[in-house]
């Protein structure tokens, strides 16, 4: 199955976090959703990238209206049953969706993988997330030739952008901005204790960043202790991760240095009084709240308590935004790499496509016609130059007539790639023939040079 690349989705650029969260595919729903996606008429391959900043469905599609169909699918899909708390008809989601088709979709994919479309341009997480999405789709069996060729290209481009430009030199995401801020408060993080409130996916990711930043001791509390335990086990490799009952939060607030909040609570978990009480017991030791929960877990007033620093998602993004400006020129250089790669890719795609097959096919037929015409002319010694040309034209005309129907079919077929492959197999065509043959024909077959331009 081939066709062109189509992407439908939403990202931090188009949709607020509440919508993104609702649209995100839980891990267990990914494979069923992928299988459903390739059942959408005209769609042959599919891959879903679902992160906290973007939810995107990449597909190889033949049908003209595939973007529309995929939009509908995106809004309505509840594969795996785990998705869509909104349960409605998705009317609020649909206007936030974007759809890119063909080269635009390709550009989008390249930019996403190279982290040029990220909230923090240059962050490295996204590449891993796209790779993961690709792997999941491979396991679900929804990767075909188009995505199979496109994604590795995107990965190697992302690598080039990382190594050849300064874009990626920066902190890699909102979470690592938080880690840097922690370093600006505490210096070395090795002896710092972290309290993780909530055992969600985002919290775990941020906790991993803290561990990567040097934190050795974490305590995880969650209303459902089993999830805290599971997370502690996952984090246990590189740091000492303990769990504690929810009720011990006040005691822990007095002990730890960094509090990472990411619960799904609708009301703030930590209010000003609670923070003040903790600070009194801490004798003013610095306390850093990283609140990546939406809705927020920490009351904004907590930030005004002395020696308490509070960063919620907005504040972290604000820091990120303040620093994006400086990286514009680097981003431009990275964009140039993307455009270069797009050009190279489309050339490579063309080499696989219909046009060269037509060239090869014509060349092969003309080659045959030419050799037969030469044989015949060798036997007819007493022909004038004009008569010889007529025989040559006749041979070429036969080729053109014979090829008319198959070439038209090749050009018209939306599934051209596949048909082209069949033709190449049937007539044993290989790239590289075109040039030689057209040159040879130029010597003998009158205006045979046209063969090269077909």
């Amino acid at each position: 199955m081939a066709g062109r690349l189509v992407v439908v989705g939403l990202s931090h650029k188009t949709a607020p976090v509440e919508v993104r969260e609702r649209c995100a595919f839980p891990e267990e729903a990914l494979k069923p959703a992928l299988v459903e996606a390739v059942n959408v008429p005209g769609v042959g391959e599919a891959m879903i990238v679902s992160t906290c900043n973007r939810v995107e469905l990449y597909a190889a599609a033949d049908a003209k209206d595939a973007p529309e169909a995929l939009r509908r699918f995106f809004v309505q899909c509840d594969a795996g049953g785990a998705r869509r708390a909104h349960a409605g008809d998705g009317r609020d989601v649909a206007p936030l969706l974007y759809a890119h088709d063909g080269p635009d979709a390709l550009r989008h994919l390249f930019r996403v993988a190279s982290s040029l479309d990220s909230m923090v341009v240059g962050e490295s997480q996204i590449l891993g997330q796209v790779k993961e999405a690709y792997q999941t789709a491979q396991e679900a069996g929804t990767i075909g030739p188009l995505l199979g060729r496109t994604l590795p290209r995107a990965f190697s481009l992302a690598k080039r952008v990382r190594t050849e430009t300064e874009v990626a030199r920066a902190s890699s995401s909102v979470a690592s901005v938080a880690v840097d801020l922690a370093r600006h408060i505490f210096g070395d993080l090795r002896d710092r204790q972290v309290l993780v409130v909530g055992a969600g996916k985002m919290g775990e990711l941020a906790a991993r960043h803290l561990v990567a930043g040097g934190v050795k001791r974490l305590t995880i509390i969650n209303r459902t202790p089993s999830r805290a335990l599971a997370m502690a086990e996952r984090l246990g490799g590189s740091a000492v991760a303990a769990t504690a009952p929810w009720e011990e939060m006040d005691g822990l607030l007095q002990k730890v240095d960094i509090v990472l909040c990411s619960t799904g609570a609708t009301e703030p978990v930590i209010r000003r009084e609670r923070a003040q009480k903790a600070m009194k017991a801490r004798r003013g030791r610095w306390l850093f709240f990283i609140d990546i929960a939406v809705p927020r877990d920490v009351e904004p007033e907590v930030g005004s308590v002395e020696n308490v620093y509070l960063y919620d998602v907005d504040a972290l993004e604000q820091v990120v935004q303040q620093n994006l400006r400086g990286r514009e020129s680097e981003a431009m250089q990275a964009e140039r790499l993307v455009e270069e790669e797009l050009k190279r890719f489309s050339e490579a795609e063309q080499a696989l496509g219909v046009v060269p097959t037509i060239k090869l096919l014509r060349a092969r037929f003309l080659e045959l016609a030419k050799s037969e015409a030469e044989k015949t002319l060798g036997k007819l010694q007493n022909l004038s130059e004009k008569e010889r040309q007529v025989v040559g034209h006749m041979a070429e005309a036969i080729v053109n007539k014979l090829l008319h129907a198959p070439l038209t079919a090749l050009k018209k077929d939306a599934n051209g790639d596949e048909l082209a492959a069949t033709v190449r197999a049937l007539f044993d065509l290989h790239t590289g023939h075109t040039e030689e043959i057209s040159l040879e024909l130029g010597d003998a077959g009158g205006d045979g040079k046209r063969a090269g331009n077909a």
Partner: protein
Amino acid sequence: MPPLFPATLSLYVVACTLYLVQIVLGASGQGARSVISAPTPAKAPGLIRAARVILALAFASHAVDIGWLCTVGLHPVVNAREALSFASWLMCGLYLAVSLRTAGLAVVGAIVVPATLVLLVAARLVPGADTPSAIGMTPLGALHITLATAGVALFAVAAGGAVVYLLVERNIKKHKTGFVLRGGPALETLDKLSRRCIVIGFPVFTVAMVTGAMWVARLPGRGVFTAQYAISSIAWLVFAGLLVLRLTLGWRGRRAAILTLAGFAGVLGTLGIYFVRGVGGGV
């Protein structure tokens, strides 16, 4: 004029410029490379290293000058001029020592090094300050001036740390990434720097106060309770209060930084009076 003074001065000027330039660069050019760079980079960037080397050269050259002055009888405590120059030398040495041990203190350097330069220029170039004290210089007086100078140097570095602390703190609190946050030191590091300087500086200053009082009390016709003594007593009280609050109530951070600056303002006031009197010919 000591023989190496032009060299010392030029080196201080270059070091000072470099420290200031690295701050400006941190705010624009180099800042483009990172969102907010880690506060303690593994390796100091070239500019900061260069600044530090030149500052060390200035420090050495300054030391030679002080040594030379001693050989001609102008030891550091002979008059206000030499005491100021000595204080600036101590400050510079203190900062160098601390910045070698703690990474990311270049921002503090951008405050301490210019202050050193100003002190040195004031000491060397203001006319009249080299009149030896009209009153008798006794060993007690020499001890007093030496200790007071050391105390001032320590408090000056503490105050430098406090200023940077307040700047960085404001940035972090208000979710801004100003230049101080790029490559700037961590809040805790700054607080620790200030605290240590005061913990060491306070007893030194205390002894300086006592010896000063004893020295002046033995001089004929001079009362202990002068304006400078009142102001330095207030400064001493502020630092004493700060230490008590730090040790008992766990005061730290912003409040401690503000108190440090208040105390240092008192020290500067005392110093100012000394200097004006020194220029006028008396201690």
